[in-house]
């Protein structure tokens, strides 16, 4: 009876937040399924099932209420981000393994919802790319010219993994081409000649990135995220890629290519904005976003991995508590004191 005030609350809940994040992913997923292949839908289902099972088991072990936490939607968001960042034809067990690792180790062993210092989906990606580098690098070249059934069979291991799908991401393709060719090869030429590249980035993939951008803007409009992280992430990526592109346009791709390739857009709007593992102060978010954008570029261009978003976000996760501590905003009435 002695419940404390306030006696009525805004109609918000963790599940509502998570459901809206899932809705915001739909434009990107739609473009993915349409242009790359419906295999992604299968992966989303596999990841979701694996996430819910792992979540349920961990809740049981930890003695937490099942219904309350299974319905919060956080496991589904993690699962979807994993499915969307893994290769679309990755074997089912790889996606499931990554997801289970994310939920069990990266989330629950650190204390569950709200306690994880690292983004669970990015932990899954990092673990799998280190443990299974070959499988994690098999990206279909352009769209998957096969039926949904064939795609499913490959995912489920019922059909042999054909050479055709052992392609590379546009980012990887560009990097390899630049490395293999002699120094007088021009990036503009490469982009124009190869089938894998579209209007300004990877064929098909550029529209998937566009879908994430659309969903991200919707989340911003709904106040699920603030502008700080995406703007800082994209800004840093544009500045560093633009500077190097201006310095040597033959060897460095332009900012637009980088923005719409790989995990840049999904990273800027959906991964680096994770409040649990990211920064929370306005200035902290700017530093976090810019750091992630910068590191992502450095890793994807100069590092050994095809893309750098996952490692960039994880590295910034490490710094988040310190950044937050050092960027506490002045409070009401204390702004004049330095």
């Amino acid at each position, binding site marked *: *009876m*002695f*419940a*404390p*005030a*306030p*006696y*009525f*609350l*805004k109609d*918000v*809940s*963790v599940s*509502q*937040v998570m459901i809206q994040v899932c809705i915001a992913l739909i434009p990107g997923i739609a473009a993915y399924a349409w242009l790359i292949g419906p295999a992604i839908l299968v992966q989303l289902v596999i990841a979701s099932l694996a996430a819910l099972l792992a979540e349920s088991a961990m809740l049981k072990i930890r003695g937490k*209420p099942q219904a*309350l936490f299974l319905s*919060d939607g*956080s496991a589904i968001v993690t699962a979807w981000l994993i499915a969307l960042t893994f290769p679309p034809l990755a074997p089912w067990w790889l996606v499931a393994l990554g997801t289970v690792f994310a939920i069990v180790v990266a989330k629950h062993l650190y204390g*569950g*919802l*709200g*306690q994880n210092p690292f983004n669970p989906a990015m932990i899954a990606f990092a673990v799998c790319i280190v443990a299974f580098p070959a499988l994690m690098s098999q990206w279909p070249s352009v769209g998957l010219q096969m039926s949904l059934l064939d795609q499913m069979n490959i995912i489920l291991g019922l059909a042999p993994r054909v050479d055709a799908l052992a392609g590379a991401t546009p980012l990887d393709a560009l990097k390899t081409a630049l490395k293999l060719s002699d120094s007088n090869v021009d990036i503009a030429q490469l982009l124009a000649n190869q089938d894998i590249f579209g209007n300004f980035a990877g064929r098909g993939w550029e529209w998937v990135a566009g879908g994430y951008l659309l969903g991200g803007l919707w989340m911003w409009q709904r106040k699920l995220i*603030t502008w700080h992280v995406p703007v800082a992430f994209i800004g840093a990526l544009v500045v560093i890629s633009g500077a190097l592109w201006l310095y040597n346009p033959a060897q460095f791709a332009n900012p637009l290519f980088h923005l719409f390739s790989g995990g840049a857009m999904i990273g800027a709007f959906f991964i680096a904005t994770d*409040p*649990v593992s990211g920064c*929370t*102060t306005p200035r902290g978010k700017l530093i976090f976003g810019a750091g992630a954008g910068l590191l992502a570029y450095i890793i994807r261009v100069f590092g050994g991995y095809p893309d750098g978003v996952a490692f960039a976000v994880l590295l910034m996760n490490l710094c988040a508590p310190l950044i937050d501590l050092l960027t*506490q*905003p*002045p*409070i*009401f*009435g*204390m*702004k004049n004191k330095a």
Partner: protein
Amino acid sequence: MLMNLFKFKGGVKPPTNKTQSVTLPIAVAPLPSRLVVPLHQSIGGTPRPVVQAGDKVLKGQLIGEADGWISAAVHAPTSGTVLEVAMHVQPHPSGLDALCVVIEPDGKDEWIAREPLDYASLKPEEVRERLQQSGVVGLGGAVFPTHGKLTPAKTVPMDELVINGAECEPFITCDDLLMRERAEEVVRGIGIFRDLLQPKKVLIGIEDNKPEAAAAMRAAVDALKEPFLVVSVPTLYPAGGAKQLIRVLTGKEVPASKRSTDLGVQCFNVATAYTAWRAIAHGEPVVSRLVTITGNVHEPRNYEVLIGTPMDELLKLATPHPDTDGIIMGGPMMGFLVPQASVPVVKATNCLIAHADRLFPPKAPEMPCIRCGSCAEACPHELQPFEMYWFSRAKNFGKTQEYHIFDCIECGCCSFVCPSRIPLVQYFRFAKSEIWAREREKKASDGAKARFEFKQMREEREKAEKAEKLAKAAAAQAAKKAAEAAAAAAEGNAAEAEAAAPETPAVAVDAQKDAKKATIEAAMARAKAQREAVQPKNIEALKAAQQQEIDQIEARRQAAHLSEAAEPAAAAPASEKTE
């Protein structure tokens, strides 16, 4: 008139629910069957009761005398008989008792001789004293004694006097109705404050969801030819918080560590201005206030209510629906469920909301914090509630202070927006009270340590003094003996003295013995007296069961010796607590 308004960060927009209670004019609540008037109704010292059970009192008669400067007098709300001066449950979430004067109304509602004053002829300190004697306190909810806020700072010029008619909490409309119906007297009261504080500007802030009140206030300001500005401020909870309203109207931000007068601003509630005017110009102390009765009731309305009216009696006037299961005092954002329905209306009671699950659905289970930052965005003091929550939960209270927990005004915005439905304010109250308790403990232990050290020092000093005394006495004795021996030697020369000589020491020894005996007897008597005085100690720290047993034995004893027992039996009920 147009003026540049400022914004405060954060704030929320809960559904206002104000329209229900503004359709009917203010009504006067009928006399209740009895009035329970708490003596402590303002910040500061608890007024001393000046009446006893059985006294006849008139309406407005002093019943509690202000204790110190920051304290305000308390008066009988109607004429009648004092039934008792005793402990009763307070309208406070703690449910604790406090001293109250209980009055049975005689139905005549007969005033004391009221003494209207022309305040223009009074000195400022006389006005302040009159306000204190009349029990004028801040009626916005903080109940700070008003006279204590009416002395301008010596060093900082008073720029703005802010009058708070914002009334930002949902459901509450008592200030709205007051301004609509009694604007002239409110404006006259503001005139008193203005004359005492001499500000450059007077700004009356009213949320823009109360256009009728603002119009009435403007009309009154014009009619009285006062240069006050009536300003409509955007409806955004908590715009009616003193610091938020000061920010909106003047752009100044008052931190927790400062008083608003340090920045040249002072702020009063409209209802406070009204009661100040009634006290000065009509000689009426604060014995009633406007209370909004709303929520799960058939006929929400504002009532003029006598202080001390039991809430359940009052709520009946608005006919609560049958599923009403509690009373919230104050608004839904900062109010609280009263510990029992019969607690009295006090000067801080601006609103009673009949509670029902239909209106205020039970909260969904608390989830872990996901650090979404909604609370930080909603906080009008720009704090980081989720960090303070984290450290409050971990009982790391030092850290909560680093995150400025004492700047939190407990407005409830953070709890309101939290998607994990964490009762954040509750955690902050817990942390604050723990910090206070620890400080008290530290003070107490420091005090105990100081006392112990002083005692040790005193004992040592006494020992030293005693030793010195003894040494002195021994030396004196030795000197005396030497002198006596010398004298005896001198006397020894005289033959007549030979016989007397051995006798003298014997007499002296006897006298010494008697004195010693007397001292010992006296000491024994003292010790006996002390023992007797100490003896009752073993019945001091009694358990309830033991006390009960003793009481039963006493009762039996009394039954056996009725005549002897009459007196203690009569005294017993007075010490009993009302359960």
